[in-house]
C-alpha cells in the first residue's frame, strides 16, 4: 500500500540496526533501565514485553533520542538514508485532541520545513500530500479532517503511527500501540503497523504476549530494567514468560514507584525538575 507513494527505492537493500551498549537510565533515584545491551538488526521485527515499570518505554525513548542515557551509548548501525534515523510512534493519547488528524500528522515532520512554514503548515497546509499519504497507509485518509477527539482509540493510535511515519525513518519504535484498545482493535492496529512498514527495523513495546509471539520475529523480555531474555519468537517458552512476569510482581518497590520509572508523566510530582 505504501509503495504507491513512497519515494524510497523498491526492494531496499539495507537499513539501520540499533545497538544499546551497557545502557543505564535513572529518573531521580529510580533506575528505569539497568545495564542493557542489545543489538537489533536492520529489518527485524522486535517486540519488547514485560511487566509494568520494566523500563520498556524508557528503552524506546532512549532509542528515539527523547532521553539521553546516564551510562552507556545508544547508536545506529548501517547505511544511512534520506529520512531521520529513528522515529518513535507515541501512544494515541499524545495527539493534540482538538486538531484534525491531518494537522497532527503534519506536526510529524516540522523539522524538515523552513522556520516560518513550520508555524503555518499544521494549520494551513500548503503541501498536505505527504501527510495524506501516511494517513492512507494507516487507512484513515477519509478521516483526515476529523478532529482527533472524535476518533476512536484505535483510530487515534493509527494517526499516531502516521505522524511517526512522516519521519521516513529506518527504525520505527512503537510505544504500547495496543494500550487502551479492545481486543479486536489491538489486532487491527498491529496489522496496520505491519502493512504500513516497508523493511524498517520495528521495535514495539507490547503488553499482549500472544500478539507479540504471533506478529514479531524476536522477543525481548524485560523486568525491573533488565533484559531477562532475548530470543526468536518461536523459541519463547512458558517458563520464560512465567519467570518474567513473576520477576516484576515480586519486586518489593511499590507499583506507583515502578510505573514512575517507566513513564515520567506518572511520577507523583508531574513536572520536570
Amino acid at each position: 500500500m505504501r509503495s504507491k507513494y513512497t519515494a524510497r527505492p523498491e526492494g531496499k537493500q539495507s537499513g539501520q540496526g540499533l545497538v544499546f551498549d551497557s545502557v543505564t537510565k535513572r529518573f531521580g533515584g529510580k533506575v528505569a533501565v539497568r545495564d542493557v545491551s542489545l543489538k537489533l538488526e536492520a529489518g527485524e521485527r522486535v517486540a519488547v514485553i514485560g511487566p509494568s515499570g520494566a523500563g520498556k518505554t524508557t528503552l524506546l525513548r532512549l532509542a528515539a533520542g527523547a532521553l539521553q542515557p546516564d551510562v552507556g551509548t545508544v547508536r545506529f548501525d548501517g547505511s544511512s538514508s534520506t529520512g531521520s534515523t529513528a522515529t518513535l510512534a507515541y501512544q494515541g493519547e499524545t495527539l493534540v485532541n482538538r486538531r484534525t488528524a491531518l494537522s497532527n500528522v503534519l506536526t510529524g515532520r516540522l523539522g524538515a520545513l523552513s522556520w516560518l512554514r513550520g508555524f503555518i503548515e499544521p494549520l494551513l497546509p500548503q503541501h498536505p500530500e505527504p501527510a495524506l499519504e501516511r494517513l492512507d497507509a494507516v487507512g484513515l485518509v477519509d478521516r483526515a479532517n476529523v478532529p482527533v477527539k472524535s476518533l476512536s482509540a484505535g483510530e487515534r493510535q493509527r494517526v499516531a503511527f502516521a505522524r511517526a511515519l512522516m519521519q521516513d525513518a529506518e527504525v520505527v519504535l512503537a510505544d504500547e500501540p495496543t494500550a487502551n484498545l479492545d481486543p479486536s482493535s489491538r489486532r487491527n492496529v498491529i496489522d496496520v503497523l505491519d502493512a504500513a512498514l516497508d523493511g524498517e527495523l520495528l521495535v514495539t513495546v507490547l503488553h499482549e504476549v500472544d500478539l507479540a509471539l504471533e506478529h514479531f520475529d524476536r522477543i525481548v523480555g524485560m523486568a525491573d530494567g533488565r533484559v531477562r531474555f532475548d530470543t526468536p519468537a518461536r523459541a519463547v517458552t512458558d517458563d520464560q514468560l512465567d519467570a518474567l512476569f513473576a520477576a516484576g510482581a515480586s519486586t518489593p518497590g511499590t507499583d506507583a514507584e515502578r510505573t514512575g520509572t517507566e513513564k515520567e508523566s506518572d511520577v507523583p510530582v508531574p513536572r520536570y525538575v
Partner: protein
Amino acid sequence: MSRFHGMSEKYSGPDAAQHAATGLSKRQLTTLLGGCVILAAAAWVAEVDPMALFAAGAREQMGAFVAEGFPPETGGEYLLGRSLRDGLLWAIVETLAISVVGTTLAVALAVPLGLTSAATVTHRGPLYRNASAGRIAVGRGLYHASRTVLSFLRSVPGIVWGFLFVTAIGLGPFAGVLALAVHNAGVLGKLYADFLEDTDPMTNEAVAGSGATRLQAVCHGMVPQVTPTIASYTLYRWECTIRSAAILGFVGAGGVGYYLVITIQRLQYGKLSTAILAVFALVVTSDWLGSQLRTRLG
C-alpha cells in the same frame, strides 16, 4: 490502575479504623480548633461588632435608605443626560466598553508574559532535554523575571491602577481601560502560564521529537492543548472586569461608578437605587452572555 491501588491502601490502613471508632481523629480536632482560633483572631482584627447593626443611628440610616431609595429615580434626564456621552445609560455602556477593551488589552499583554512565565516553555521538560546548561539558565532567568512582573501587576488592585492612570493621563474611561488591562494581564498571564505547565509532557515530547524548533513545539504541541481552557477562563475574567469597571468611576476612571459615588455623597438614594439596579442588570446580562459563549466553546 496500579497507582490507585497504592492509594486505596493508604486510606484503608490502621488510621481509617481509628476514625471509625472515635468519630473525629486527633488531627481533625486540631485542624478544627486551629481554624476556630484563626477565625476569632481575624474577627478581632476586623473589629467585628454585631451590635453596631442594631444601634439607633444605624437603624435610622438604613430606614432612610429604604424609604428614600424607593421608588428608584427614572427621570429622562438622569437616565439619558443632556448629550450623547451623558446620563446613567451611557455610563453603563461605557462600563461595558471599558471591560471589553480592557480585557482585550489584558489578553494581548498576558499571552507573551504567560509564555515566558511557563517553565515548560522557558527551561523545563521535554523541550529542554538536550539543551545546554547556559540555555537553561537563561530560560530560568526569563521565567523568574516574568513571574515577578506578573505578581506585581496582579498585586496592585485595579482601582489603585485606575487612580495611578487618572493621575498620569487624566480623568476618563481610557484610564479605566489601562487599569483593567494592566491588573488583568497579571491575573491572566499567571493562569495561562500555569495551564501551559500542566500540559501533557508526552504530547509535548512527541511534537518536539519531530525535529520542531522549541517555538514550533510550543505552538503546535503545548498551546492547542490549553486553548479551550484559556478561552473559557478569559471569558470568566471578562465577567469579573465588568464588576471591576463598575467601581473604577470612584477614582474618575470612567463608567457607572461615578454615579454610584456621587449619589452616595449627595444622599440621592433614589438615583443610587437606579444605578445599583443598572449595575445588577449589567452583571446578570454579562454572566449570562459569558456562560452562553463558554457553552459554545466547550
